[in-house]
């Protein structure tokens, strides 16, 4: 690992990025980011119009089993669910078996941020280096007062027990790098949802979907919670001795509790919204979100049923990958998206995850 004062030279490689992302308080046997997570099983049912836009198998009428891993974005190995953090929702759809009896899958990886920080892997390496965690130093009262008098934001105080600052480097990087600003501003103030089931998750990158007539459209996917978005009130005083459901792992506790008590058809749901890009939109630039004035199609509903039975095999050692696509869905020319495919594969190998589905190993080795 490079010494703290020398940034790694371009070009970025999957290995160099992963090395930067691992934190001192992280766990090399686990993911470098989105370390803490919990997986659930459920089903995806496409809407009646989905097949008009995409010929992929899971958008044809039917009901398709899914595994979803909800996660906290942080690379810290200890859970702090109530600390402000981006959340992740990685979904693996089980597609109908092919003629040879082989099961196939496709992944959709999403997070609570609407945009990414960089347009290219090299820019992301620069950003990740600049934004690497530094020891948290509380901003002095005088500096805060000065900030208030300058009508600027004082820096957030560390949470009790928070020793690493996740935002400071990113904020400084964004001053000179305009493309990172939307992501940094959204991430710094994102807070914590009251439940994994009450946040909106965005896949951010543009994909190209093709329908059965061969018509192609550039699109971006988002999951909208039917329960509605709600974030935790961050100004409520921190309780060092919390009730169950209020502590460092409250999100996982809440999810378990809710799924145990949801009965019959009352499964928590997400709507899959697909927004169609237009001429003049930045199709391959994940730092620019599309405004809410684009046509959005309701592609289907995902219902969450139960926690997975084996959290190791079915969650920690699964290797989701944004490049695991299927006929009818392709990647756009987004450079970061392409880079993520290799990076996720490498990370999976490094932590001893089950064979990545690209490897061509027997399907029985790979998946539940």
């Amino acid at each position, binding site marked *: 690992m490079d010494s703290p004062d020398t940034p790694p030279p371009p070009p970025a490689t999957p290995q160099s990025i992963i090395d930067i992302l691992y934190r001192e308080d992280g766990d090399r046997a686990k993911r470098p980011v989105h370390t803490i997570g919990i997986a659930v099983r459920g089903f995806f049912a496409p809407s009646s119009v989905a097949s008009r836009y995409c010929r992929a198998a899971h958008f044809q009428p039917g009901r398709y089993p899914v595994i979803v891993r909800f996660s906290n974005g942080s690379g810290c190995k200890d859970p702090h669910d109530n600390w402000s953090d981006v959340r992740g929702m990685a979904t693996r759809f089980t597609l109908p078996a092919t003629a040879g009896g082989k099961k196939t899958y496709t992944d959709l990886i999403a997070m609570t941020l609407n945009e990414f920080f960089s347009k290219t892997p090299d820019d992301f390496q620069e950003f990740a280096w600049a934004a690497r965690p530094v020891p948290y130093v509380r901003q002095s009262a005088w500096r805060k007062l000065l900030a208030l008098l300058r009508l600027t934001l004082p820096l957030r105080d560390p949470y009790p027990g928070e020793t690493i600052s996740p935002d400071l480097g990113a904020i400084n990087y964004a001053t000179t790098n305009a493309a990172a600003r939307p992501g940094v501003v959204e991430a710094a103030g994102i807070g914590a949802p009251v439940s994994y089931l009450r946040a909106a998750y965005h896949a951010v990158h543009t994909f*190209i979907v093709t329908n059965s007539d061969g*018509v*192609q*459209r*550039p699109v971006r996917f988002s999951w909208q919670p039917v329960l509605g978005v709600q974030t935790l009130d961050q100004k409520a005083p921190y309780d060092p001795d919390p009730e169950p459901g209020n502590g460092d792992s409250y999100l996982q506790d809440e999810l378990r509790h809710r799924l145990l008590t949801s009965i019959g058809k009352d499964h928590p749901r997400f709507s899959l919204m697909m927004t169609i*890009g*237009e*001429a*003049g939109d930045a*199709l391959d630039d994940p730092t620019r979100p599309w405004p809410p004035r684009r046509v959005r199609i309701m592609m289907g509903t995902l219902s969450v049923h139960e926690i997975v039975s084996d959290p190791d095999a079915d969650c920690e050692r699964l290797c989701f990958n944004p490049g695991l696509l299927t006929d009818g869905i392709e990647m756009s020319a987004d450079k970061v998206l392409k880079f993520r495919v290799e990076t996720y594969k490498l990370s999976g190998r490094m932590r001893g995850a089950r064979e990545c589905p690209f490897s061509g190993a027997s399907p029985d080795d790979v998946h539940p």
Partner: protein
Amino acid sequence: MTAGYLVEDEIGIVQGNILRGYKLPYVRHLVLEVADRTAARAFLGAAVAGDNPDVPQITTEQPDRPGVPKATVTFNLGFTWQGLKALGLADQELRSFPTEFIEGMTRRAAKLGDFGDSDPCHWPSPYRQPDRVHVIASVYATDEGELNTVQDQVSRSFKVIGVHNGYALPEGKVYFGYKDGMSQPRFVGFHGSGPRDGKNHRIVEPEDPLGTVLLGKPTRLRDLEYAIPQPDQLGRLGTFNAFRVLQQDCFGFEDFLTSTAELLQKQGVADRLVGNEHAKLVYPELKGRDALREVIAAQLCGRWRTGMPMQLAGILKSNPDAQPSNQFDYGSHALCPVGSHIRRNNPRGGEVVQRIANFTRRLIRRGMCYGHPLDLKRPDNLERGLLGNFIGASLGAQFEAVMCDWLNLGLNSPEITGSNDPLLGANTVETSWFDLNLWTEVKPKTIEKHRIHGLPRFVTTRGGAYTFLPTVAGISYLAGLRS
């Protein structure tokens, strides 16, 4: 209310090439900067008076006189707002010009669809410094020597910062192979009245009031009058021009016709294309895929490449030598696709969402080709296209209104909203589409739509400016400025 026609002292002061076009084979547009205000004003005064052999005289619109030959060299001037400012026009008078003219074409890029490759940041010199583009002097002539003479004369009083050479292709064609300039507004009291036009076609299209092009005259919208820029001597009977340098991807267009023909054959719909039945009348020598390409070209434009409108091609059955006419309209079962180039930019009397807008957003178009000659058998990457002039009394109400709501976006009909002009529009391959017309398989045959996708952008903007074309009285006023 002023007279709807030109009265005696108004005749002969409007610049030429506005009400009627020049039919000369060569043009040179000189893009000029006013480096020396005094010299520029002196030039203007001499250009109006015509008494200085070293200064070309402004050509004006003159009634034809028997025995008097038409001019073989013409000279006209257009001024940008920055140019009027550089000549010393007073602040209050500068403010009396319309907002879009003051801002200039470069700042209106988003509205005009000039993004991506057409973005002004890619425009070559001099357009990258729009505040230095002051005057566009246009010289039409019968040979190059005359163009050079005038350029020399002009360069003594102005700084020449850009030169565009244009020429007419044979048969009145422009690049993409279409015969152009077919439909121009005909003015009340100017082009003569009577039930038949100059080519003896029965007139269907209503004439346009002079106010469509000349400021101070009544417009089609009953009581609406456009503001005359001040002072009156400068503004009255002047008009505005959108000058645009439009690069055309001719090889890309021909390739698109070929690949679309192949696609339609593969999809099994090629023999139902509306216009197939006329292809053998318009192009009796073409067969198979070659004929199919011409049908597609006709649907994209609304006219066959010979200039014959799709709506009128049937006339060739009884009269194979019939000349293309401009007298037609669009009914509810029109052959011509709603999204075709000529129909979306001039919906004539057909149904329009903006009901009041029929016949109001008219444009006079004066265009000449530029760039390297084309040999379709030898593909190249050289630049060629159209030097376009789009003239009307109000840039906002006419040129810009057509560009942003009809040519792009297709707001004039819900059938095409969300799509752009197939020939000129701001298309990207990932998102563009066009609905071709097919005859239905079931009888009685009616028209159904067939959508094609992935049209690339064929025309890229490479520069331009909004100019004001005053009368010679207006140019005299500018010559007389002192400050």
